[in-house]
């Protein structure tokens, strides 16, 4: 059974969506977000220093053996993301059946939340098992750590939990996620197991000497690969034309172009920028998710119970509101481990007040409304009233505001990375930007312009989307608009 509110909210959203679609700014924004999302998912396939296929040649030029270094390189997270996107997105647009498009999007969001929760749970389990620092969370992205049993177990647990949520209505839909999660895990570990990583430097030299034949990715650089002889190459330069690497003239490596230049430690800017989409998108979504969940929970508690609960929690909200958030974030990011998960957590933890206030206000209003009182009068327990009836209505303005929150989170990530407080070992637009003004006082324009543009466009896209949604949903503003 779904709440009256849920259905009401759905029609309402469809209506709002139609209005959003009529705004060119919002559509452009969504297009950019889609592009970013694409690169976030497929960056390992597009920009990678590991060749897709490596043929080792014998002395007479015969193929001795074939390796697939890229496959070995991909982490479980990569696999998960890519497979989910490759199947999920076409399913949304082409799929048919009982579920409408909105329903399919809902199922996918539910599934990705499951996947996210799985990763977090698995990380926590590893952490608990090993008992050492938060750094072990990073293990998850490495195959050799062998956390597969844990991931699978937690996937099953989470899938079971998730199927209790009223997203799934039939028994089959409850079983599908469990079976799916398990199968996917086994297939992935089978696929990626047994491959060896290659020494990139060696491959390039061997390739020049004609000892191997490599099929490279579209952009044969990765975010991690740096060369000290390639520092500060301007955009569009051929490797062989660069003074320090002129010795590669005539080899496949020498023919490569550094499309957007290299940075201060000799890493390719384009490759890093594509990889950085991942950090930006994930931090924006996850930290906003955390803040929305936190804020809605606290706001709902305040609005539903009122009285002293409200009084007490609102003091907490006020404290958080008067904190100079960015300042505290800088302190927190500075003293805590430089880690993606930590960054997501702290950004989420320091930005929930908006959601809490929206939800509280909405709940206070809704409490007096007929359908909630009717439900209460009908003897439904408090929890049912809260989650089935009030939440779908109360959450609407929060979700509209979430778009702005994502934009803010992206800005914060860029800022912290710029200040050198970003996650270690991760490509980030902010980090690239910070190397534009070197300590020597020179200014490297391509390190400012390209990452800067990417940050700007991403923030702008989310802001435009938010603006459009706010106009579409807020009837008062809508009236004032003409």
């Amino acid at each position, binding site marked *: 059974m779904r709440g009256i509110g849920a259905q009401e909210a759905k029609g309402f959203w469809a209506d709002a969506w139609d209005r959003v679609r009529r705004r060119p700014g919002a559509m452009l924004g969504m297009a950019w977000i889609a592009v970013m999302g694409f690169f976030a998912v497929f960056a390992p396939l597009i920009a990678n220093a590991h060749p897709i296929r490596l043929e080792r040649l014998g002395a007479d030029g015969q193929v001795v053996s074939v390796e697939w270094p890229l496959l070995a390189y991909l982490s479980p997270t990569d696999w998960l993301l890519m497979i989910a996107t490759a199947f999920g997105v076409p399913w949304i647009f082409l799929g048919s059946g009982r579920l409408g498009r909105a329903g399919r999007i809902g199922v996918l969001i539910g599934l990705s939340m499951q996947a996210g929760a799985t990763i977090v749970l698995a990380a926590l389990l590893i952490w608990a098992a090993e008992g050492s620092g938060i750094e072990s969370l990073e293990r998850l992205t490495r195959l050799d750590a062998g956390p597969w049993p844990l991931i699978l177990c937690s996937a099953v647990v989470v899938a079971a939990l998730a199927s209790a949520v009223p997203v799934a209505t039939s028994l089959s839909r409850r079983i599908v996620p469990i079976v799916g999660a398990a199968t996917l895990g086994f297939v992935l570990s089978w696929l990626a197991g047994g491959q060896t990583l290659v020494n990139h430097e060696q491959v390039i030299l061997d390739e020049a000497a004609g000892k191997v034949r490599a099929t490279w990715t579209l952009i044969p650089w990765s975010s991690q690969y740096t060369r000290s002889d390639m520092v500060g190459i301007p955009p569009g330069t051929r490797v062989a034309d660069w003074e320090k690497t002129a010795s590669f003239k005539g080899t496949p490596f020498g023919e490569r172009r550094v499309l957007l230049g290299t940075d201060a430690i000799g890493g390719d800017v384009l490759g890093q920028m594509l990889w950085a989409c991942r950090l930006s998108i994930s931090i924006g979504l996850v930290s906003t998710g955390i803040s929305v969940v936190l804020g809605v929970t606290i706001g709902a508690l305040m609005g539903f119970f009122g009285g002293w609960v409200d009084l007490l929690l609102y003091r907490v909200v006020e404290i958080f509101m008067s904190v100079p958030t960015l300042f505290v974030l800088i302190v927190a990011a500075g003293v805590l481990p430089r880690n993606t998960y930590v960054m997501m957590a702290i950004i989420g933890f320091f930005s929930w007040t908006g959601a809490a206030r929206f939800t509280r206000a909405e709940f206070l209003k809704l409490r007096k409304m007929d359908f909630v009182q009717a439900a209460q009068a009908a003897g439904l327990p408090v929890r049912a009233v809260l989650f089935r009836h009030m939440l779908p209505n109360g959450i609407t303005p929060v979700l509209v505001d979430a778009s702005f929150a994502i934009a803010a989170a992206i800005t914060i990530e860029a800022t912290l990375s710029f200040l050198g407080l970003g996650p270690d070992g991760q490509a980030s637009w902010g980090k690239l930007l910070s190397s534009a003004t070197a300590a020597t006082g020179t200014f490297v324009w391509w390190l400012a312009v390209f990452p800067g543009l990417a940050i700007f466009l991403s923030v702008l896209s989310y802001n435009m989307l938010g603006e459009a949604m706010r106009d579409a949903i807020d009837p008062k503003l809508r009236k*004032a608009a003409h």
Partner: protein
Amino acid sequence: MATYLLRRLLLMIPTVLGITLMVFLLVALAPGGIGAGLAVQGGQMSDTSKVAQMQAYLEDRYGLNDNVLVQYARWLGRVSPLKFGTTPLVAPTGDLVREPRDLPEPVMTWAFPAPASFVVQYTPPEGEALVADFKRLQREAEGTRRTYVGAVRGLKDALADHVRALGAPWTARLEPKGGADPERFRDLPLEGDAPTLVALRAAAATMHSSWTEAEAARQRATIAFLARPYPAAGIEIIPNAFSLGAPDFGVAFSRNRPVWDLIATALPVTILINFIAFPIIYLVAVPTGVLASVRRGGAFDVISGLMFLLLYSVPVVLTGVFAIGFLANNQYLGWFPVSGLHDSAAATMTFMPYTDDAGAWHRGWLLDMVWHLALPVLCLVYAGFAVLSKQTRAAMLENFSSDYVRTARAKGVPSRDVIISHVLRNSLLPLITMFVGIFPAMLGGSVVVERIFTIPGMGSLVIEAINLRDRELILANTFMISSVSLLALLLADILYALCDPRVAYD
């Protein structure tokens, strides 16, 4: 009004406490903890045992071995203007002198019984002699204490060595980094004459002898302290129990200077930048919002809305880098200085610009500062434009359709006066409320801006403090920034109360 103010001020106290506690816990519980920065400093020394002893000394000095909440309470006690316990004294240098602390207990007393406690007999001299004596005793107490703390650490290291020599299963009880917690080895057999065991016994003997020495020095220094070689700090209400005094933010170990000195030079800079930026934001955003609302749906409305949305989406770091790169860097335009608050020659400048006899123009101190601050302030203001003008526009539109504006128009008030004295006047209230949202964000933004333009404000200070894990500095920074932020919010509240007759003060 006075009671209203007082109530607001009192409400600020829990807020500041909440924020500082949060930051304290963050700093203290972070992996590597406060010691991480200390270790960095100690790491420059070659001898590992020296490093360990140095670390032990610093940990003891900053009380890092205690429970986090105890540490926080101690910090709070120093910062609070109400002070409990022995009244600190003020040395002629201006430094605060506190009663010498008790020594940490000797460890492994079950194996090596601690020396019996004793009471030193010492009669402090009077007058000048007391001051000289106290200084000497203070140094002595400090030195012996350091040796003792080092000896305790030495004992622990010796214990760890011995455990390692014993091998499994004992080694399993060692800490991850190899240190030994004596409490976990109460059942360790200590008979025999293995070399590590001999060393352990020697370490215990050293610890005991240095304890005796340090304890004696401490007692003498305490007696001299209680004889009051210097005047008491603050106002004593009950001597050595309860006094009022200025907050003491401690000493920043990274610079070895009182934190307060650092803040006193940095805070005005940050406040200055913000106080220049604020009027600019309001002066640009409010008229724009008003115009946009008056011609709603017109070209100005649409264009200003779009432009501000674009500006709003540009992160401060981006503007900063572009401004430095293209406007300030000599490779490109080079119109503005790249960093700092003043030219290096600022000290010799006249205040106002002038033209000297040779006809050369000198910009003077004031213009020099304006020139240096132009880009940082630019970076700080533009994001506020969008927020504020949008809010102004919305408030104006809401008031335009209000009943009292209709009344004013029905009275025959010309539309310009309606806009200014009725619509705008009522829209000021949400604009004041907006301040509450903008100011904390601005303070955070100025941290970044200061960092980019290397301006010696709170931002630069806090980032330095973070990088060195200088707890005292981080906490004091947080405390000051939150206080400034809260005071600004209080100001906004008062302004609101003054502007809106409906708000009752009590």
